């Protein structure tokens, strides 16, 4: 069904189609509409919305529901995600699947409520303690806010791990047409869950392993899981990248700006292309190396101070010049601004 929808609302529509039946959250701008939509829509499908008294409570309520075998999610913005970090580490350690939406706003501290991408490190590198990874997907449109939320549920269950939908305040707040299939996903059976039934009586959900060998074995098991995700799950999108001399790299709302910058450059005869990571962890390293194979220059654009830039540089490993441009504090670069960063110099070189 085609409909006009706000990014934050699309998250809940996608979640319901993914079989999510529990949402626990706490209000925060610019993510509040996710919880508001959950409060409105989840009861209509027999689900549960509960308001937590803080994000610390919200993530632990998510822990509870996930342990009980329910598809569950929470959503917040940077300050709330900071509070959730211990809980996320526990979820990862106890191998509990859940989906967390981070609508990134300006930071650090209270910052402001305008779009930024400054939570990249916290979400992609794992802001909590210990050896764990979050699966991170990065939507760039309202359509993807719904679709990638659905994907996040699938990946969370597949790997029994928290999955994060990492979006900027821009994508969360904008309104676009979305097309949603009226078909609901079936959540997989979770024989490991604690349900109080005879079948699950012996199940144990924990993240404590006091004996060092035991904890090492647990971590090796998690590493193997992450290695599998790194092989199977990286996702990306290319736009005019096949013959690009200049490869632009950006995610979320930035990728939309970069797409326009590519078009503008192409009109001027400059071969520019776009590489957009859809999964930020696992980062689509191989695809990036392939896309940048014939590029003379890579330009990374972020709404943060060089966070994804590190992953791009690690992936390309000095094969090609990597330049960087960013706007922060809630500013989003214009097409002209980005275009000016690469077009004039590239044309001068040619």
């Amino acid at each position, binding site marked *: 069904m085609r409909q006009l929808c706000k990014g934050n609302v699309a998250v809940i529509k996608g979640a319901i189609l993914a079989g999510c039946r529990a949402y626990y959250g706490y209000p925060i*701008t610019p993510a*509040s509409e996710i919880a508001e939509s959950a409060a409105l829509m989840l009861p209509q499908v027999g689900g549960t919305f509960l308001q937590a008294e803080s994000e610390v409570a919200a993530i632990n309520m998510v822990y509870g529901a996930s342990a009980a075998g329910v598809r569950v999610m929470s959503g917040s913005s940077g300050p709330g995600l900071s509070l959730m970090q211990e809980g996320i580490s526990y979820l990862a350690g106890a191998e509990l699947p859940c989906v967390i939406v981070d609508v990134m706003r300006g930071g650090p501290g209270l910052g402001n409520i305008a779009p930024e991408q400054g939570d990249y490190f916290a979400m992609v590198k794992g802001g909590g303690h210990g050896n764990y990874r979050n699966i991170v997907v990065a939507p760039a449109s309202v359509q993807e806010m719904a679709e990638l939320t659905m994907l996040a549920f699938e990946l969370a269950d597949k790997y029994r791990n928290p999955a994060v939908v990492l979006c900027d305040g821009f994508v969360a707040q904008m309104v676009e047409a979305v097309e949603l299939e009226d078909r609901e996903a079936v959540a997989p059976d979770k024989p490991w869950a604690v349900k109080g039934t005879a079948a699950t009586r012996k199940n144990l959900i924990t993240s404590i392993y006091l004996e060092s060998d035991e904890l090492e074995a647990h971590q090796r098991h998690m590493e193997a899981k992450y290695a599998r995700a790194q092989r199977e799950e990286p996702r990306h999108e290319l736009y005019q990248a096949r013959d690009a001399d200049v490869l632009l790299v950006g995610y979320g709302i930035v990728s939309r700006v970069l797409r326009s910058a590519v078009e503008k450059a192409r009109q001027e005869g400059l071969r520019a292309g776009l590489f957009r990571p859809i999964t930020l962890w696992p980062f689509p390293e191989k695809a990036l190396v392939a896309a940048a194979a014939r590029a003379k220059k890579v330009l990374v654009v972020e709404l943060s101070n060089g966070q994804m830039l590190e992953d791009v540089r690690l992936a390309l490993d000095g094969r090609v010049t990597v330049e960087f441009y960013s706007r922060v504090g809630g500013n989003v670069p214009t097409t002209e601004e980005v275009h000016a960063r690469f077009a004039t110099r590239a044309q001068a070189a040619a």
Partner: protein
Amino acid sequence: MAISPFVEIDATQKLDPFKGVKKIPLEEYFTSGHRTCQGCESALVMKMMVKAAGPRTIVLGSTGCMYVANTTYYSTSWVVPWMHTQLGSSGSAGLGAAAALKAQMRKGKMKKEPINVIAFCGDGGGADMGLGAISASLTHPDYNFLILLYDNESYANTDIQLSGSTPYGAHTTFSPPGKMKRIMHHRWKKNTAGMLAAGHPECKYVSTICMSYGLLGMNCIRKALAIGGPTFVHSLDPCPKGWDYDPYISHELGELAVTTGIWPLYEVENHTLRLLGKTREIADKRYVRQPVRDYLMKQGRFAHFTKDDIDYFQSKVDEMWQKWLIPGVIPMMKDLEGDAPPAE
């Protein structure tokens, strides 16, 4: 209650009660430059709170309307030193500031003088997220500070979501009334002041105020600051945006909250309870409680209430006055029959 000989409390400022509105100083310490809504009672609380405290005061505020509306876009309405704290940390930050001032004075790095420390929080930051921090800070008898909770009964800063302080049945963005279910919020408001007064033996002053009774409210704040140690004041603030009414009647709604018996005014000073103002008159039967309908039906957030809902609300308020062990304060009911002394 006796104080342990190991507790060292520094002197506080001498803040005698204002004896009438004409005795209130004219000087303002919360002035122009804020962007609160028309009819915002919380802004009035800030203004009168700091006027009651005087110029030698540090104010800390956790995230909420009174932070965002008063200290953003390169401007502030605070004339006294002011700092922001995390949403749930007014208690911890207030304690930290008071303890640091005391240490600086003890070491001779600051002139020894009584400085008021006030940490304020909204109902979201205080009654929900920050309750643990407030509770912990009230157990520290050595430091002088006041925690003021301005309660507009919702997360007003993020566009009116439910909080633990939201009254039964109110329409918020987390509790939208609908055809299938009329009352989405069916929990009774948290009794924050009563809980903190009952549960913190080291806290010498807890009170509830409403700035529709301004002089009384200011004098409670002065008493809380002068008594020494950690103290707590809970203020009920009508909010035109969240409660959905004409800003013109903000003050009247505050009065109605008290005269209907929904918001009892009291203080617990050195563990002695005193009902205040109109609440005392109600308890003494010198004033008849007004029906809650008069209060509820003036607010859009209760517009979906049917007669049954109003009756239920009234019955809960009646229960509070007729059955609670201490009306309006302690929500425990006395088991009269089981209360007989055991037989010899």
